[in-house]
Protein backbone atom coordinates (compact mmCIF):
# COMPACT_ATOMS: atom_id res chain seq x y z
CA UNK A 1 0.00 0.00 0.00
CA UNK A 2 1.05 3.54 -0.64
CA UNK A 3 0.97 5.99 2.28
CA UNK A 4 1.71 9.64 2.79
CA UNK A 5 2.89 10.97 6.13
CA UNK A 6 2.95 14.59 7.17
CA UNK A 7 5.56 14.98 9.88
CA UNK A 8 5.51 18.19 11.88
CA UNK A 9 8.59 19.05 13.93
CA UNK A 10 8.36 21.78 16.53
CA UNK A 11 10.51 23.02 19.39
CA UNK A 12 9.55 21.70 22.81
CA UNK A 13 7.66 24.19 24.91
CA UNK A 14 9.94 26.45 26.90
CA UNK A 15 12.59 26.37 24.15
CA UNK A 16 13.56 29.71 22.68
CA UNK A 17 12.07 30.24 19.20
CA UNK A 18 13.87 33.36 17.88
CA UNK A 19 12.26 33.08 14.45
CA UNK A 20 8.78 32.91 15.99
CA UNK A 21 9.56 35.91 18.19
CA UNK A 22 10.77 37.91 15.18
CA UNK A 23 7.59 37.07 13.24
CA UNK A 24 5.47 38.04 16.25
CA UNK A 25 7.21 41.43 16.32
CA UNK A 26 6.74 41.93 12.57
CA UNK A 27 3.03 41.16 12.97
CA UNK A 28 2.87 43.87 15.63
CA UNK A 29 4.33 46.32 13.10
CA UNK A 30 1.39 45.45 10.86
CA UNK A 31 -1.04 46.05 13.70
CA UNK A 32 -1.73 42.42 14.67
CA UNK A 33 -1.48 41.60 18.35
CA UNK A 34 -0.74 37.93 18.99
CA UNK A 35 -0.18 35.93 22.16
CA UNK A 36 2.59 33.82 20.69
CA UNK A 37 4.01 32.70 17.35
CA UNK A 38 5.73 29.33 17.07
CA UNK A 39 7.56 28.04 14.03
CA UNK A 40 7.45 24.41 12.90
CA UNK A 41 8.75 22.42 9.96
CA UNK A 42 6.65 20.02 7.93
CA UNK A 43 8.01 17.08 5.96
CA UNK A 44 5.82 15.09 3.58
CA UNK A 45 6.99 11.51 3.17
CA UNK A 46 5.59 9.07 0.64
CA UNK A 47 6.25 5.43 1.43
CA UNK A 48 5.10 1.85 0.81
CA UNK A 49 4.05 -0.34 3.71
CA UNK A 50 2.00 -3.49 4.35
CA UNK A 51 -0.58 -1.58 6.37
CA UNK A 52 -1.07 1.68 8.19
CA UNK A 53 0.44 0.36 11.45
CA UNK A 54 3.63 -0.68 9.72
CA UNK A 55 3.78 2.69 7.95
CA UNK A 56 3.39 4.54 11.26
CA UNK A 57 6.05 2.44 12.95
CA UNK A 58 8.41 3.14 10.08
CA UNK A 59 7.87 6.91 10.11
CA UNK A 60 8.07 6.97 13.91
CA UNK A 61 11.52 5.37 13.65
CA UNK A 62 12.61 7.91 11.00
CA UNK A 63 11.62 10.72 13.34
CA UNK A 64 13.56 9.27 16.24
CA UNK A 65 16.67 8.47 14.24
CA UNK A 66 16.95 11.53 12.03
CA UNK A 67 14.10 13.92 11.36
CA UNK A 68 13.64 15.18 14.93
CA UNK A 69 16.22 15.79 17.63
CA UNK A 70 14.50 14.40 20.74
CA UNK A 71 16.51 16.75 22.98
CA UNK A 72 14.80 19.84 21.58
CA UNK A 73 11.86 18.72 19.43
CA UNK A 74 8.36 17.31 19.62
CA UNK A 75 7.02 15.65 16.50
CA UNK A 76 3.56 14.77 15.21
CA UNK A 77 2.75 12.31 12.46
CA UNK A 78 -0.38 12.45 10.40
CA UNK A 79 -0.74 9.47 8.07
CA UNK A 80 -3.12 8.63 5.23
CA UNK A 81 -3.53 6.15 2.43
CA UNK A 82 -2.33 7.71 -0.74
CA UNK A 83 -3.37 6.83 -4.32
Amino acid sequence: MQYQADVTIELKSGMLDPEGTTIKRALEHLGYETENVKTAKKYTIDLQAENIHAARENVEEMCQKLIANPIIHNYFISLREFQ
Partner: protein
Amino acid sequence: MSIGIVQFGGSNCDLDVLHVLKDVLGVDAELVWYKEENLKRFDGIVIPGGFSYGDYLRAGAIAARTPIMNSVKELAEAGKPVIGICNGFQVLTESGLLEGALTTNNYPKFRCEPAFLRVEITDTPFTSKFRKGEVVSIPIAHMEGNFYADESALSGLEDNDQVAFRYVDKNGKVTDEANPNGSQENIAGIVSIKRNVLGMMPHPERASEEILGSKDGIRIFESMVEFISDH
Protein backbone atom coordinates in the same frame (compact mmCIF):
# COMPACT_ATOMS: atom_id res chain seq x y z
CA MET B 1 51.58 10.29 14.81
CA SER B 2 48.84 11.12 12.37
CA ILE B 3 45.72 13.26 12.80
CA GLY B 4 42.74 12.91 10.46
CA ILE B 5 40.59 15.88 9.48
CA VAL B 6 37.15 14.73 8.34
CA GLN B 7 35.73 16.47 5.26
CA PHE B 8 32.03 16.44 4.56
CA GLY B 9 30.39 18.15 1.62
CA GLY B 10 30.21 21.74 2.87
CA SER B 11 33.06 21.60 5.41
CA ASN B 12 35.04 24.80 4.95
CA CYS B 13 37.51 25.11 7.83
CA ASP B 14 39.23 21.82 6.94
CA LEU B 15 42.16 23.44 5.13
CA ASP B 16 42.71 25.95 7.94
CA VAL B 17 43.01 23.11 10.45
CA LEU B 18 45.32 21.21 8.09
CA HIS B 19 47.51 24.32 7.76
CA VAL B 20 47.77 24.76 11.51
CA LEU B 21 48.59 21.12 12.19
CA LYS B 22 51.01 20.63 9.28
CA ASP B 23 52.61 24.00 8.63
CA VAL B 24 52.48 25.63 12.05
CA LEU B 25 52.92 22.61 14.33
CA GLY B 26 54.73 20.32 11.90
CA VAL B 27 52.48 17.34 12.67
CA ASP B 28 51.47 14.67 10.18
CA ALA B 29 47.85 15.43 9.31
CA GLU B 30 45.60 14.37 6.48
CA LEU B 31 42.20 15.25 5.06
CA VAL B 32 39.76 12.33 5.03
CA TRP B 33 36.73 12.39 2.73
CA TYR B 34 33.57 11.27 4.53
CA LYS B 35 33.18 8.17 2.34
CA GLU B 36 36.15 6.52 4.01
CA GLU B 37 34.96 4.14 6.66
CA ASN B 38 38.15 3.12 8.37
CA LEU B 39 40.00 5.69 10.47
CA LYS B 40 42.07 3.21 12.49
CA ARG B 41 45.34 4.61 11.14
CA PHE B 42 44.76 7.91 12.95
CA ASP B 43 45.74 8.82 16.52
CA GLY B 44 43.31 11.73 16.69
CA ILE B 45 40.46 13.23 14.70
CA VAL B 46 39.34 16.79 13.97
CA ILE B 47 35.83 17.48 12.69
CA PRO B 48 36.19 20.98 11.28
CA GLY B 49 33.72 23.81 10.91
CA GLY B 50 31.62 24.73 7.93
CA PHE B 51 28.13 24.04 6.67
CA SER B 52 28.05 20.29 6.13
CA TYR B 53 25.17 19.39 3.83
CA GLY B 54 24.12 23.03 3.72
CA ASP B 55 22.88 22.77 7.32
CA TYR B 56 19.87 20.94 5.84
CA LEU B 57 17.46 19.49 8.42
CA ARG B 58 19.55 20.78 11.36
CA ALA B 59 23.17 21.92 11.52
CA GLY B 60 25.30 18.76 11.68
CA ALA B 61 22.35 16.34 11.52
CA ILE B 62 23.12 14.73 8.17
CA ALA B 63 26.89 14.54 8.70
CA ALA B 64 26.29 12.89 12.09
CA ARG B 65 24.60 9.96 10.36
CA THR B 66 27.22 9.23 7.70
CA PRO B 67 29.08 5.90 8.02
CA ILE B 68 32.41 7.59 8.76
CA MET B 69 30.95 8.67 12.10
CA ASN B 70 30.80 5.02 13.21
CA SER B 71 34.54 4.91 12.84
CA VAL B 72 34.90 8.22 14.72
CA LYS B 73 32.83 6.67 17.53
CA GLU B 74 35.11 3.62 17.63
CA LEU B 75 38.19 5.84 17.94
CA ALA B 76 36.48 7.86 20.67
CA GLU B 77 35.58 4.68 22.54
CA ALA B 78 39.22 3.59 22.27
CA GLY B 79 40.17 6.80 24.11
CA LYS B 80 41.68 8.66 21.16
CA PRO B 81 41.19 12.44 21.15
CA VAL B 82 38.39 13.77 18.93
CA ILE B 83 37.71 17.48 18.59
CA GLY B 84 34.71 19.02 16.83
CA ILE B 85 34.89 22.72 16.05
CA CYS B 86 31.76 24.79 15.37
CA ASN B 87 29.86 22.67 12.81
CA GLY B 88 32.01 19.81 14.11
CA PHE B 89 30.58 20.41 17.62
CA GLN B 90 27.09 20.28 16.11
CA VAL B 91 27.99 16.98 14.41
CA LEU B 92 29.23 15.55 17.73
CA THR B 93 26.05 16.44 19.63
CA GLU B 94 23.85 15.19 16.77
CA SER B 95 25.75 11.89 16.73
CA GLY B 96 25.40 11.44 20.49
CA LEU B 97 29.15 11.61 21.17
CA LEU B 98 28.48 14.73 23.23
CA GLU B 99 25.43 15.72 25.22
CA GLY B 100 23.04 18.56 24.49
CA ALA B 101 22.13 20.35 21.28
CA LEU B 102 23.10 23.57 19.51
CA THR B 103 20.13 25.66 18.52
CA THR B 104 19.65 29.03 16.82
CA ASN B 105 21.35 31.98 18.55
CA ASN B 106 18.96 33.85 20.84
CA TYR B 107 19.38 36.82 18.52
CA PRO B 108 19.03 34.87 15.27
CA LYS B 109 21.96 36.24 13.36
CA PHE B 110 25.29 34.87 12.16
CA ARG B 111 27.90 36.22 14.57
CA CYS B 112 31.52 36.36 13.46
CA GLU B 113 33.69 38.15 16.02
CA PRO B 114 36.41 37.68 18.64
CA ALA B 115 35.23 36.09 21.89
CA PHE B 116 36.75 35.82 25.35
CA LEU B 117 36.63 32.34 26.85
CA ARG B 118 37.48 31.11 30.32
CA VAL B 119 39.27 27.79 30.51
CA GLU B 120 37.33 25.76 33.08
CA ILE B 121 39.28 22.50 33.14
CA THR B 122 42.84 21.55 32.28
CA ASP B 123 42.70 17.79 32.84
CA THR B 124 41.71 17.02 29.23
CA PRO B 125 43.74 16.13 26.13
CA PHE B 126 42.84 19.56 24.71
CA THR B 127 43.40 22.00 27.56
CA SER B 128 46.53 20.77 29.36
CA LYS B 129 48.53 23.72 28.01
CA PHE B 130 46.26 26.27 29.74
CA ARG B 131 45.91 27.44 33.30
CA LYS B 132 42.57 26.86 35.01
CA GLY B 133 40.56 30.07 34.96
CA GLU B 134 42.72 31.63 32.26
CA VAL B 135 40.93 34.02 29.88
CA VAL B 136 41.75 33.47 26.21
CA SER B 137 40.61 35.07 22.96
CA ILE B 138 39.32 32.72 20.24
CA PRO B 139 36.84 33.92 17.60
CA ILE B 140 33.35 32.59 16.95
CA ALA B 141 31.49 32.36 13.63
CA HIS B 142 28.06 30.74 13.84
CA MET B 143 24.30 31.11 13.84
CA GLU B 144 23.44 27.88 15.67
CA GLY B 145 25.65 27.99 18.73
CA ASN B 146 23.09 28.28 21.48
CA PHE B 147 23.95 25.34 23.74
CA TYR B 148 20.94 23.60 25.25
CA ALA B 149 20.71 20.53 27.46
CA ASP B 150 17.81 19.42 29.63
CA GLU B 151 18.09 19.96 33.36
CA SER B 152 19.54 16.59 34.27
CA ALA B 153 22.06 16.59 31.40
CA LEU B 154 23.12 20.12 32.29
CA SER B 155 23.67 19.36 35.96
CA GLY B 156 25.56 16.22 34.92
CA LEU B 157 27.89 18.33 32.79
CA GLU B 158 28.50 20.72 35.67
CA ASP B 159 28.86 18.03 38.35
CA ASN B 160 31.36 16.04 36.29
CA ASP B 161 33.38 19.12 35.30
CA GLN B 162 32.68 18.60 31.61
CA VAL B 163 32.37 22.28 30.72
CA ALA B 164 35.68 23.15 29.05
CA PHE B 165 35.08 26.78 28.05
CA ARG B 166 32.59 29.52 28.93
CA TYR B 167 32.00 32.85 27.25
CA VAL B 168 33.17 35.61 29.59
CA ASP B 169 34.06 39.28 29.53
CA LYS B 170 37.72 40.30 29.33
CA ASN B 171 38.03 40.06 33.11
CA GLY B 172 36.84 36.49 33.12
CA LYS B 173 33.36 37.17 34.46
CA VAL B 174 30.39 35.15 33.20
CA THR B 175 27.85 37.78 32.13
CA ASP B 176 24.83 37.91 29.83
CA GLU B 177 26.56 40.57 27.71
CA ALA B 178 29.50 38.25 27.13
CA ASN B 179 27.19 35.45 25.98
CA PRO B 180 26.99 35.78 22.18
CA ASN B 181 24.24 33.26 21.52
CA GLY B 182 22.16 32.55 24.63
CA SER B 183 23.98 29.33 25.60
CA GLN B 184 22.97 27.92 28.97
CA GLU B 185 25.52 28.85 31.64
CA ASN B 186 27.56 30.62 28.89
CA ILE B 187 28.81 27.24 27.70
CA ALA B 188 31.18 27.50 24.71
CA GLY B 189 32.65 24.00 24.80
CA ILE B 190 32.21 20.66 26.59
CA VAL B 191 34.03 17.35 26.84
CA SER B 192 32.68 13.81 27.02
CA ILE B 193 32.55 12.01 30.34
CA LYS B 194 35.81 10.21 29.42
CA ARG B 195 37.23 13.64 28.49
CA ASN B 196 38.71 12.58 25.15
CA VAL B 197 35.98 14.18 23.00
CA LEU B 198 35.78 17.98 22.88
CA GLY B 199 33.18 20.09 21.11
CA MET B 200 33.52 23.85 20.97
CA MET B 201 31.84 26.62 18.97
CA PRO B 202 34.84 29.02 18.83
CA HIS B 203 37.48 28.40 16.15
CA PRO B 204 40.96 27.69 17.61
CA GLU B 205 42.41 27.30 14.10
CA ARG B 206 41.60 30.97 13.53
CA ALA B 207 43.66 31.96 16.57
CA SER B 208 46.80 29.96 15.95
CA GLU B 209 49.26 32.45 14.47
CA GLU B 210 50.47 35.89 15.53
CA ILE B 211 49.30 37.41 12.26
CA LEU B 212 45.71 36.35 13.07
CA GLY B 213 45.66 38.44 16.23
CA SER B 214 45.73 35.62 18.77
CA LYS B 215 47.77 32.49 19.34
CA ASP B 216 45.55 31.19 22.14
CA GLY B 217 43.89 28.61 19.91
CA ILE B 218 47.04 26.77 18.97
CA ARG B 219 47.46 25.59 22.55
CA ILE B 220 44.41 23.38 22.06
CA PHE B 221 46.13 21.61 19.17
CA GLU B 222 49.44 21.57 21.06
CA SER B 223 47.71 19.94 24.03
CA MET B 224 46.18 17.34 21.73
CA VAL B 225 49.52 16.59 20.06
CA GLU B 226 51.25 16.25 23.44
CA PHE B 227 48.52 13.91 24.66
CA ILE B 228 48.98 11.72 21.59
CA SER B 229 52.78 11.66 22.03
CA ASP B 230 52.42 10.63 25.67
CA HIS B 231 49.99 7.78 25.00
